[in-house]
């Protein structure tokens, strides 16, 4: 599973992308975030409060209840501020 991070999520985690292989009980984007939080302080700082974070699965906005699987590209980022 490919993960992408943007803006301050990227800065807090300290990288812009990585490939991970989460355990079978990670079924949703929310599960994935909760699993990432266990990896260390940067991840926890970025992803512990999901009210501040948005997720896209395969380049489409998604909810944290949406399922994620091995072949997916999952991106975490703050609410957008373009325009």
């Amino acid at each position: 599973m490919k993960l992408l991070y943007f803006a301050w999520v990227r800065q807090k985690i300290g990288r812009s992308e990585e490939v991970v292989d989460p355990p079978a009980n990670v079924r949703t984007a929310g599960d994935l975030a909760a699993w990432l939080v266990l990896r260390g302080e940067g991840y926890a700082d970025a992803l512990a409060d999901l009210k501040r974070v948005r997720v896209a699965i395969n380049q489409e906005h998604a909810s944290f209840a949406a399922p994620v699987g091995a072949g997916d590209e999952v991106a975490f980022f703050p609410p957008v501020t373009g325009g």
Partner: protein
Amino acid sequence: MIRVQRQDFDVGTEIEALTRGRTDVGAVVSFTGQVRDDAEGDRLKSMTLEHFPGMTERELMRVEEEARVRWPLLDVLIVHRHGELLPGDRIVLVATLSHHRSDAFEAALFLMDYLKTRAPFWKRELRESGERWVEARGSDDEAAARWR
């Protein structure tokens, strides 16, 4: 048509390209967003727009398509810059062409409201006091909500 680019754009050139040779256009609305130094003591030195290559283009194409479904538009252009910008620099251009003015106005407003809440761009400001990420505004969510 949508474009995501680092370089500047010229509003007149873009509108001219959209309208040239056409005699069916009654109304052209353009919106240009610029980097604003709100100058409240802590001056803005620059602004950097990060984006999500690939998803950005998809979201812009999606919002153009949605606008064309909702209003009878003769053409649509969205140009959004990324990278480092200075106060006064242009960030985004939205232009809509229609027979009648209300369609062009509403569609341009819709496009901007959706861009603000869905297009994956993030602004980082460099001020005299340091760097900070711009926070999303609740008023932008409310503006987008009126189109649902």
